[in-house]
């Protein structure tokens, strides 16, 4: 970690430092609404970062990351509701389950040469399959949903993720910061260079003696495990889980928008993307309400249009462009 910090230029340190301090002290000045938006931003920065690791660095397109969010959420919630096992312990089981699913999908895909769009469809297929399966799993509540009961006497148990808004804000901040640190660290490691080599030209990487299969497998396993942690957060933040919501393909798309808009394969891209898209969605809600347009769907139409505009104007994402303006850009693999 100190190596990462020392490796940065003055400007980069200043920028990272300012943003971090602002986020740490935000709850002192922000109202409830702002905190909830910031929590959402940090959550998307976190899961986006997990996806970015797999797509942006290892080059494997997954359109089914909602699967890992959902599995993480359901495993931790079921352990808590049925067995009283707290999320501080349940998160390990959740990660294990999601990572095994990730490993299985990755193994199927990479062993049998399912690549690119086909691999993406394989991930969608698994997510959809699991969604319908959970709709019919009686012990998990089925399509009627799974609810984490509200228990007043447990409210202070922060280790069990029972608490108020501020608790979840700091948990989300912790997750997002750790994800940035982890990705920054990994991409400067041997494994990170393997990933980039495989992403750029798998045949050439193999010729250099890189075990491409193993590199891709580690990417999927780390990414799915990380995403499951986001799922645990989701479960205890919202306290209700519905298969039709959490496993839905639109959830998978939601996860990948921030890193693509922010800049794939960059450490800060997912964070920047989340800081653009979530407030954009929120302000569109406020704007349409102010204008007195109460038709459902208006917000989403603007959202779709702006999304197309961003990807049209900034093909490699907003962050590389923004970083150049701020004078903090450096070409990293």
């Amino acid at each position, binding site marked *: 970690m100190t190596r990462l910090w020392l490796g940065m230029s003055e400007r980069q340190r200043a920028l990272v430092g300012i943003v971090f301090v602002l986020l740490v002290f935000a709850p002192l000045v922000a109202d409830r609404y702002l905190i909830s938006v910031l929590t959402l931003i940090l959550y998307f920065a976190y899961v986006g970062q997990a996806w970015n690791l797999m*797509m942006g660095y290892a080059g494997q*397109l997954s*359109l089914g990351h909602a699967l890992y969010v959902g599995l993480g959420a359901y495993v931790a919630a079921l352990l808590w509701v049925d067995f009283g096992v707290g999320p501080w312990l349940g998160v390990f089981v959740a990660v294990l389950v999601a990572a095994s699913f990730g490993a299985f999908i990755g193994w*199927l895909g990479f062993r*049998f*040469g*399912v690549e*690119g*769009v*086909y691999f*993406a*469809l*394989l991930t*969608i*297929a*698994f997510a*959809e*399959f699991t969604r*319908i*399966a959970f*709709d*019919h799993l009686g012990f998990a509540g089925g*399509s009627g949903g799974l609810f984490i009961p509200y228990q007043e006497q447990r409210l202070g148990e922060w280790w069990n993720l029972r608490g108020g808004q501020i608790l979840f804000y700091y948990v989300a901040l912790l997750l997002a910061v750790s994800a940035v640190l982890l990705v920054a660290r990994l991409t400067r490691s041997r494994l990170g260079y393997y990933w980039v080599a495989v992403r750029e030209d798998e045949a050439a990487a193999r010729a250099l003696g890189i075990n491409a299969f193993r590199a891709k497998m580690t990417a999927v396993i780390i990414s799915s495990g990380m995403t499951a942690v986001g799922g645990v957060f989701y479960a205890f933040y919202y306290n209700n889980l519905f298969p039709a919501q959490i496993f839905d*393909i*639109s959830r998978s*798309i939601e996860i*990948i*928008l921030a890193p*693509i*808009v922010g800049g*794939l394969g960059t450490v800060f891209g997912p964070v920047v993307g989340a800081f653009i898209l979530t407030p954009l969605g929120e302000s569109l809600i406020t704007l349409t309400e102010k204008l007195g347009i109460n*038709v*459902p*769907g*208006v917000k*989403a*139409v603007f*959202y*779709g*249009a702006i*999304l*197309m505009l961003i*990807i*049209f104007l900034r*093909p490699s994402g907003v962050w590389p462009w923004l970083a150049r303006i701020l004078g903090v850009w450096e070409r990293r693999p």
Partner: protein
Amino acid sequence: MMWSIYLNVVVQGVLTGLVYGLMALGLSVIFGVVRVVNFAHGEFAVVAMYAAFVLFKTAGLDPLLSLLPIAAIFFIGGFLLQTVLINAFIGRPEHDQFILLVGVAIIIVNVLLMTFGPDAQPTNLSYAFDSYSIGPLFVDKVRIYSAVAALAIASGLFAFFRYTRVGIAIRACADNLVGAAVVGLNVKRLYAVTFGLGLACVGAAGALMVTIADATPSLGPAYTLLAFVIVIVGGLGSMTGALVGGVLIGVSEALAGFLIEPSMKSMFSFALLIAVLVLRPQGLMGRRA
């Protein structure tokens, strides 16, 4: 007489599957030539469903007739969409194209939601509940008509690609892009024609779909996934594959809905998709690349 029930279910699945197949054919043609995955495919189908619905309610036009003008308008729409928007994204990474079409899909679904609301809109054709009885078989009239129409349109498209100069030129683009450009084909224009044809298929399929399902905006993403499943099972880029895949998925849905539970029917389609991707990635009718 258990077997006759199964027979009925299977026949119904085959007929529905042919309409599914026509829809998936559009996706297959677009991917096979333009190499862009149309993530807004099902959404376009739902637009066509609403178009047929409106034409029926206002002008009393039967969906079996209105599919022609709808397909024509969809052709023009697809041509323009490719020319204005998608051609700029040719050669860009898959995820960029993906975001672009997801944007299109989001806009379509929500404009439909704003215009028609979230409730399902039944078309109520006068002959919707008529059926033919052939021996032990009872077949819905609408399903027969739709299946025949779907087959006719698909054969028209086959003939177009086989015998017309434009069709052959498009196939040349699909087979060897550089070669096609070298002999002087206007690739971007042909891409636009292809996207137009793809959408015309969806338009016609959507109009036919109205006779067997009620239009609602949320069908969009479901149909997109359905089209993907069919095309991958049949073989991406293979035209007969799309129809065969459609029939297969139609039958599997009908059987699963009958034997197990209607809400679990697409689970079997996804299981089939996973099996095909792993065991025969090129699809049942596809050639190995």
